Structure formats: structure tokens, C-alpha cells
């Protein structure tokens, strides 16, 4: 199968997944990349070039905020992304939308199978 189809399909849900990972706590970029990879059984292994534009867009839309953390000892300073109140409610709406879309898709796909 052409890789294009897979990445095209994933693209639509990435914003939602990133917001979801930030729902409970602040995270830094590389952390989001590792968690996505781990929790999806490697299905979503994002590159920085994919993740950061998403984070910047979410930030432009005021759904997340970012802040550089203090460098502790020899550790590298990290930029943390925090979900905003607006982001929280947007996430709920997107999740609901995803359910609807997912149901509609299932209906079509299953309907086609039965015919």
C-alpha cells in the first residue's frame, strides 16, 4: 500500500492525539513523540518536523501554551506545552466529533461489506 494513504489518514487525528496527551499534564516535545510511539505500538512514530508545526498551530489557536523550564543542574532546559481551558473544551468537542466521524465511517464501511 502506498505510504501516502496511511500518513494522510493519520494527519487528521494528530491534533486530537497531541491535545489528548497534554490533557492531564504538561509535556515537552520529545516526550510527546515518545509517548505517541509507545502508546500506539509504534503506529504513530512522529518526526520533529511533524510534531512541532502541530504544536505551533495549536499555540497560535490558543489551545496550548508553552513555557521554557528552568535548567536543573546539567540537564537540558526543556520547553513544556500546557493545555489551556480553551484547549480542554476544544478537545472535548473534537473527541465528540471523532466519535461521530468514526461511527459514520463504520456505517459506510460495514454497509459496503454487507451489500
Amino acid at each position, binding site marked *: 500500500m502506498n505510504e501516502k494513504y496511511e500518513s494522510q489518514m493519520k494527519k487528521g487525528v494528530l491534533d486530537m492525539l497531541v491535545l489528548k496527551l497534554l490533557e492531564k499534564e504538561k509535556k515537552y516535545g520529545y516526550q510527546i513523540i515518545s509517548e505517541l510511539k509507545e502508546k500506539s505500538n509504534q503506529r504513530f512514530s512522529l518526526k*520533529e518536523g511533524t510534531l512541532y508545526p502541530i504544536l505551533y*498551530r495549536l499555540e497560535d489557536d490558543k489551545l496550548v501554551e508553552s513555557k521554557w523550564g528552568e535548567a536543573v543542574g546539567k540537564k537540558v532546559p526543556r520547553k513544556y506545552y500546557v493545555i489551556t481551558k480553551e484547549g480542554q473544551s476544544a478537545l472535548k468537542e473534537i473527541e465528540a466529533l471523532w466519535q461521530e466521524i468514526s461511527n459514520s465511517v463504520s456505517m459506510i464501511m460495514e454497509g459496503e461489506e454487507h451489500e
Partner: protein
Amino acid sequence: MSKKYIHQIGKRLKCSSKRRKEIEKELSSDFMSELENGVKEQEIIQRMGTPAELAEEFNNTFSKEEQKKYKKEKWIKRISAIVVGLVFFAGILYWFLPKSKPIEESKLFQKEEAKKQAERVIELLNEEDYKTLRECSIKKMKQYFDKETMDELKALISEEWGEFQDFGSVYVAETKQMGKTFASVQINASYENVTVTYVLAFDEEMKIAGFWMR
């Protein structure tokens, strides 16, 4: 290695310098985090992609505003590079050009002293005392003061000068060139068969730093 890699990405980004710096900082923070976790540089680079690929991914997502800022900053950079270049060039040119002022305004040189020194040099030339002339010269000028070279130069003006007669009109000025200050003396000397105009430049120690005759 990682710094170079990040820089290679940064210079390909088509966004405002503010955003570029932010991206560079963030990428290098990720890079360092992975290094701390024991991942090898080569593996990180392989995962992140080549600088061109990574920059391309970012470039495809920049807003219109970011792109506008990028273009504007690029023009400002270009124009200021040209301006700096021109100012530098003008400065160099000014530095190279000799700048003269009347000897009376000079804080370094006395007119009478410069005139006397010029007359002394010409007398030494007339006596063909090149050893003393070399002693009175800066290093660069020493090579010209020998009998062979001088005879050739003199022959360019006239084969037979004749005996020295007298000094004619004198003009003295202070000249600044390439960060150095000289006293320049133009003096006429008449010989039996020719009149020669000497132009001599002396440095602050009154050593010969330049010599022309015609």
C-alpha cells in the same frame, strides 16, 4: 555535530528569525535529551531526517504571516549588507587616499626642519653618498639608494645633468595615508643642464619614506 546539524536546519527555514531561533532551541533541546538517554547522534539524525527534509516539513506549515516576515527580514538583511559593504569600501578608500594639510597646521612637523632635511638628502644624492642615504631611510626605501639604481633613474631625466647650482621653490605639506603621517616636500633643484623637481616624504622620525624625481 549536533550544533552543525541544527544550524543546517535553521538556515533553511523560511520564517521570522524569532521563530527560527525558537525552533533551533527546541530541536537542540530534543537532541540533547536523546543524547542523555544514551541514543547515538547518528541514530537521532536518522530519526529526525536530513536538514533539508526537516526544514521542508516546517516550511510547508508556516502561516502567511511568518512567510511575509521571512521575506521582509531577508530584504532588510540584504540591504544592510550592501550598506555595510559600501561604508567599509568608502572607509578603505579614504584610508588609502593621501590627505594633505598645510604644514603650518601640523603638530608633528616643522616647515624649516623638513626643508632642511630635503636639502640635505639632495646634497647627499649629488655627492653620491648612498651609504648615508640608506641610513636615513625607512627599510622599504633602502633598496633604491645605490649607485646603479640612481644612475638609471637620473638617466631617465637627462644623460648629463651637469654640476648642481641652486635650490629653487619649496612646498611642504603634511600628508596622511593608510594611518601614517608624513611630511612631504616638493623642492626644485637646478643643475647646469636640467632643473629637477624632487618630491620627498619623511616619516615622524624624519627618515626618507618616499622619493620621486622628475
